[in-house]
């Protein structure tokens, strides 16, 4: 009798766990067609290892630099660990995790992130929570993920669910049953790749129309917490014998103020870091704001990103002394496949864009 009862309990627990985790998997957003940024962090693990350059931070890297182009032009293998509105502490913990998977020679950090020192500085808190989920849900469980969650949670998240909703995401997405899409079922076991080694391709063209106004700010000072984490990133790179390169991507908005530039220059000089402000090299890069942006200068499209990558690759080769590794056959084979997928994606997206343009009056 007792044996029977024990068996009943064991079967019930197993059945419960299976249903629970299946539902959890189903309800978690897959980010395949909308907000693709949410799928990028977990894609990293399929492409991790043997990358010489790792780009971190937000859309100013994952929409502006093309690793495939970097490989094809210079033979430098690279990857982007970017995510939407990635806060500097998230960049730090992602980098910490990255060093467990590979040993890059260069880490490229986009300095615009220094302007966001708190969840509040981003604005809408509900959006911030969504950004947190897009960065954190995709990370594999590790000490870095736990630390990143703790550092990132908004006030509402802390009050309502704490870390539990990250451990059991069903607690966050429990009401998505009403919004399930075809992709939630299709990608139940395996998700599509939405990026090319972390690069989120855009092919549309939406030229810059007007100058963005330089509205005076109350304060231009980067927050202490940003410096604290920048120091941590720097020290982490030093610890792993890796060069940290600071970069300001050529995005016209949000405005990169002179006061910001001075602070970054001071920091770079103080710690002997290479800093490239791409906004000051637009002509050398060859950016044409009528052709190379898909959202009026906020981010580059693939044509602009390829130009920027060609320019930046030369710096990586000349200043960081990165070698051309195209002679490595296994690596080359891998990147040939990546290039094929990249070209395929580009072609498909261009076709879709052109069809869309034909339909529109």
């Amino acid at each position: 009798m007792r044996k029977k009862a024990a068996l009943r309990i064991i079967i019930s627990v197993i059945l419960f766990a299976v249903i629970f985790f299946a539902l959890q998997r189903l309800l978690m957003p897959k980010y395949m067609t909308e907000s693709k940024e949410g799928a990028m962090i977990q894609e990293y693990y399929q492409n991790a290892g043997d990358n010489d350059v790792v780009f971190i931070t937000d859309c100013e890297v994952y929409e502006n630099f093309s690793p495939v182009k970097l490989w094809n032009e210079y033979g430098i293998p690279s990857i982007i660990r970017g995510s939407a509105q990635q806060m500097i502490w998230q960049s730090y913990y992602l980098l910490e995790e990255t060093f467990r998977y590979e040993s890059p020679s260069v880490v490229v950090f986009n300095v615009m992130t220094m302007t966001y020192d708190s969840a509040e500085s981003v604005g809408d808190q509900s959006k911030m929570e969504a950004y947190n989920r897009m960065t954190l849900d995709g990370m594999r469980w590790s000490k870095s993920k736990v630390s990143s969650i703790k550092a990132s949670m908004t006030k509402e998240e802390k009050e309502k669910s704490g870390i539990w909703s990250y451990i059991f995401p069903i607690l966050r997405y429990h009401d998505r049953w009403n919004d399930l899409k075809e992709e939630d079922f299709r990608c139940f076991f395996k998700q599509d790749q939405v990026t090319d080694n972390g690069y989120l391709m855009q092919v549309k063209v939406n030229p810059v129309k007007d100058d963005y106004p330089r509205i005076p700010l109350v304060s231009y000072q980067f927050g202490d917490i940003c410096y604290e984490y920048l120091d941590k990133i720097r020290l982490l790179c030093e610890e792993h014998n890796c060069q940290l390169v600071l970069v300001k991507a050529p995005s016209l908005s949000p405005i990169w103020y002179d006061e910001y530039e001075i602070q970054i220059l001071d920091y770079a000089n103080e710690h002997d870091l290479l800093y490239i402000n791409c906004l000051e090299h637009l002509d050398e890069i060859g950016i044409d704001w009528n052709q190379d942006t898909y959202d009026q200068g906020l981010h580059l499209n693939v044509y602009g990103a390829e130009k920027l990558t060609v320019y930046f690759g030369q710096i990586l080769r000349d200043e960081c002394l990165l070698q051309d590794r195209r002679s490595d056959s296994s690596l080359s084979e891998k990147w040939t496949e990546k290039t094929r997928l990249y070209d395929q994606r580009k072609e498909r997206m261009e076709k879709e864009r052109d069809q869309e343009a034909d339909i529109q009056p």
Partner: protein
Amino acid sequence: MSFASVTFFVFLGILIILYYALPHKIQWVLLLVASYVFYLFAGWKYLPFLVFTTISTYLGTNYISRNAEASKAYLEREKDHLSKEDKKAYRAQAKKRSRIAMILVLVVNIAILFFCKALLVDPFLSLAKGNTSLSFLTLGLPMGMSFYMFQSLGYLIDVYRDKAKALKNPFKLALFVSFFPQLVQGPISQFTELEESLFSEHAFDRKQIAFGLQRMLWGFFKKMVVADRIAVAVQALQGEEYRGFAFFILMIFFAIQLYADFSGGIDIAIGIAQVLGVKLPENFNRPYFSRNIADFWRRWHITLFQWMKRYIFYPISVSKPMLNLSLKGRKKFGRFGMRIPVYIGTFLTWMGTGIWHGFHWHFILWGFLNCIFIVVSEELTPAYEKFHSRVSFSNKKGYDIFQIIRTFLLMNLIQITDLFPRLSEYFGKVASLTYVFNFHILWDGTMTKLGLTGTDYIILLCGVVLMFAVSMIQRKGSVREQMLKIPCVIRYGILFIMIFAVILLGSYGIGYDASAFIYNQF
């Protein structure tokens, strides 16, 4: 720590394992530690209030007990030397000392409760709040204060009345005062009811644990799926523009919310206690099936109204001055005069209950309306009986249903005062029922502008139907006992559906404004 949190489940899981794994002798110690840990989660700054009530009750009850024992011993020792009058005088003296001790502890604790309710929570008496920089004014009401205080003071009075023994072990008293499942919103236990199951040893009982967990599950369903979902519409419908039939809908929605929230919380509390082998008193008995207001209050928040009756109503209505008044009244006004002490007792009990809810006129109106309805109903009872003896339909089922619906609507009219601190607004809305006939809100899209979607209404409808069905089944006895009779696969299927209904349909987490238990604030 909210009951509806993963942290609480982890806490409870650890407690259950330790509770049954460690020697059963120390189970009550573990419960005490767990209760204080649970309380500390609400904030350490609330702890002094709980500790003070415990210590003052301990000192009070032990003084009363020692005083009674000493006087008894003295009288026994000196029985041959004292006259009858001397003995009587000595007893009276001893009783007086005990009474003074009891009153002292009562007054100090009630003063603290009133102080906290008035200054820490209630804006009505906290006019000074804006002008003061005292940080404790921003504390909020210490969690469960009313409930643990009622329980402690009831125990104190019972010891004074020699209906309960004073606990010699202060830690056992601390557990009785702070037992965590009932700390949030009751039920309020009497010491004599709880003593045995709280302090005795409990062996692992699979059936009791399963029943406890099932009761918790039902509570979570009511709270998270029904109460917290409908809360959004209740909030919206309080707007100035919603009058007439919209106000009627608000009454119905609020009745559902209040019942699902409060009884859900009580189900969770009783379920947790049951898992730990402790039997808490029931606090609800299908209240919306009541046939009159007095009946309603015998079925709703049962333990509070038993407390009020035991410690306020009876002491007032059977006190010496009241008995004298009754005699005088009978001579002058007959039956009505004889019942004057009952009216006074009823009035004071309801006013006390109203004020306990908060220092707002609408709570006082709430108490007053309850008092009036009950007194009028009682007074009209003979007339009703006479009428029913002559009219045959009084025995029919239809009349029963009429009584149930009438009581439900009357109670809604009273309960809804909770939502309107401005009495003029309340009376205005009630009056609008008589001249605003905006039934079109049912189909003109208004209902979907209340923060609820069509799916939400379907979920609510299913939830309410389920609650109704469970109430109907309860008439034949325990639902869980009846469930044992159905095949195991179906039973487990039902439980799985309920668990996943709570997980998937519950209104919690980001994007939801899941409220704390309504009665938590009292």
